């Protein structure tokens, strides 16, 4: 076994599995930093995965070829923003419990996407196989041993996800917009006093989260599964939420956590290459990332540092 190649491929697969989680976890951060809990990430990812599949299918039919998946990605972003508006409307305007309205998103997504798939594809519970995004090796850099294969021979969506991690960090911590967004999530009445429109900032936070989560869902369809079915998104949204909490609502931290989950998914297919792996039941290898997360949280992270006003609807009349 050539370990240089294997290591390169392992890093590569890790990033492929992490991509969707990175997008979705970043989405969660924007919503929760503005003070709106978003347990609906799972549903928003489902909406994204679905709309990307359908849009890509029609773009292919109209003869767009390799460009079709990009239409799918754009469609996912638009759908994600629209779906997140339901969450925003209920939880910000009508002051509904944010957890409940997030769960509503999950229900609506699970129901409506399959309903529509069956409607559009005459009763089938799955879309036809789609044209997917193809890998794009970065010229020059992809020739570096290990890192070249690992980092620079990947899907464009993966590059985008990694770039967005730093963009999100910059936006949240180095721009006036980010400061306002965070202030609304920490102390909305103080933010209101200095003239920040709390509702508007929260709407923006939730809409960004819809766009990013949907983008995450879309990458699952357009890089990993290449169809949309009822199990395309099964739990990734909740893992992304875990990554967000694990990463302490910070883009860089969430990226690390998402990469960790991606790694533990990728390692499954590599561990069987070693002879000792036959002595360990596969179930324990599957379990490992989740158990490790709990252990790390207990040992190192301790008290979670959620935004102070997270989950509380803003009521200007209250002191």
């Amino acid at each position, binding site marked *: 076994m050539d370990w240089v190649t294997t290591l390169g491929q392992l890093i590569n697969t890790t990033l492929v599995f992490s991509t969707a989680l990175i997008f979705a976890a970043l989405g969660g951060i924007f919503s929760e930093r503005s003070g709106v809990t978003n347990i609906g990430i799972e549903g928003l990812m489902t909406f994204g995965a679905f709309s990307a599949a359908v849009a890509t299918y029609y773009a292919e039919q109209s003869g767009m070829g390799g460009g079709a998946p990009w239409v799918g990605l754009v469609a996912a972003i638009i759908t994600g923003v629209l779906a997140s508006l339901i969450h925003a409307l209920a939880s910000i305007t009508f002051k*509904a419990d944010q957890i409940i309205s997030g769960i509503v998103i999950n229900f*609506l997504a699970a129901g409506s996407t399959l309903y529509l798939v069956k409607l559009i594809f005459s009763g089938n519970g799955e879309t036809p196989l789609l044209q997917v995004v193809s890998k794009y090796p970065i010229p020059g850099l992809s020739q570096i041993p290990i890192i070249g294969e690992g980092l620079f021979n990947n899907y464009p969506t993966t590059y985008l996800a990694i770039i967005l991690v730093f963009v999100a960090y910059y936006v949240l911590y180095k721009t006036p917009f980010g400061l306002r967004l965070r202030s609304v999530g920490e102390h909305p009445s103080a933010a209101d006093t200095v003239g920040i429109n709390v509702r508007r900032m929260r709407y923006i936070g939730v809409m960004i989260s819809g766009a990013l989560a949907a983008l995450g869902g879309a990458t699952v369809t357009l890089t990993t599964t290449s169809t949309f079915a009822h199990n395309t998104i099964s739990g990734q949204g909740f893992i992304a939420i875990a990554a967000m909490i694990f990463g302490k609502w910070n883009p860089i931290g969430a990226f690390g956590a998402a990469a960790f989950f991606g790694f533990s998914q990728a390692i499954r297919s590599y561990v069987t290459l070693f002879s000792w792996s036959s002595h360990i039941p596969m179930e324990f290898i599957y379990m490992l990332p989740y158990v490790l997360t709990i252990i790390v949280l207990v040992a190192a992270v301790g008290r979670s540092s959620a935004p102070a006003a997270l989950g509380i609807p803003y009521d200007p009349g209250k002191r």
Partner: protein
Amino acid sequence: MSKLYKIFTGSIVVPLVAIIFGLIVGAIIMLVGGYDPLLAYQSLFEQVFGNLYDFGETLREITPLILTGLAVAFAFRAGLFNIGGEGQFIVGMTAATFVGIKVTGLPSIIHAPLALIAGALCGGLWAAIAGYLKAKRGVNEVITTIMLNWTALYLGNYIVNSFLLPEGMDHSEEIQPTASISIQSLVNFFNDARMHWGMLLAVLASVFFYYFLWKSKQGYELRAVGFNPNAAEYAGMNVGRNVVKAMFISGVFAGLAGAVQVLGVFHYQSIMSGSPGIGFDGIAVALIGMNHPFGILLGGSLFGILTYGSAGMSFGAGVPPELIRIVIGSIIFFIAAQGIVRWVLKPLYSKRKKEKVL
């Protein structure tokens, strides 16, 4: 008069209107999709109430939903979000299967309750892990319960795979007949619908929920911790211990749900490729039932009827059964965003007020 008025403005009208709105949303979506909503809803009710077998199976569908609904609501009442009903359900299922298969030579009167208790207890302990970590280390219970869901899924598969699986099968061997909680006379009466004692247990569990939370000192403490942990601590209550206790009891409900599914319905446990979903559905049931045990009986029934009936919609009117999830989602939406319902009902209320003045 004022009391009656309060009932109408208070807890009952909003869920009822929300249900009607939810069904209307479903109807509109069916119309847009080119289906006949009236025929679809008619088929749904015929599927549920059309014959004894289907009615019995609907009760079977409702039972675990009530139990996982109670699990979520119990934690909610203590200020905790137990999103891990799924994992506790699996752990309860696995423990019940294990005791149901491996323990032999006991009379039914001991074996069946033993298997039920094993399931309930293990579900409770599984949830108590999250409670303990929250109380001692301040780890967010949402993330631990999500992680424990996945852990339970693979742990359950491992136990079935290694100890309970006959060669070449994808599910465990059958439990001993002595561990079964099926009620044969009712099974015969309902034309082979899978009737079992768990249905009675679900109702008893809601009664227990009510009396424990509202009529006992311990329940008072749990609610106090849920309302305001700081105040509860100041009043001399041990917040940490109450958090663990609340999670434990919550997990007992979910574990019981898993146990009755094995002991009363399937009589074996399958290797699972993904989460069974009943734990997550419990969140919806708790919300429709407004976190009240008797509301949950109704909410669970509604959820079960809609889910079981959705198969009828698909036979009778060709509507994809997934539509029912949109209906359930919309119902929860309208319950959550009560502002919308109240806004629609406002003209009615103001009229009634005028009558009162006269």
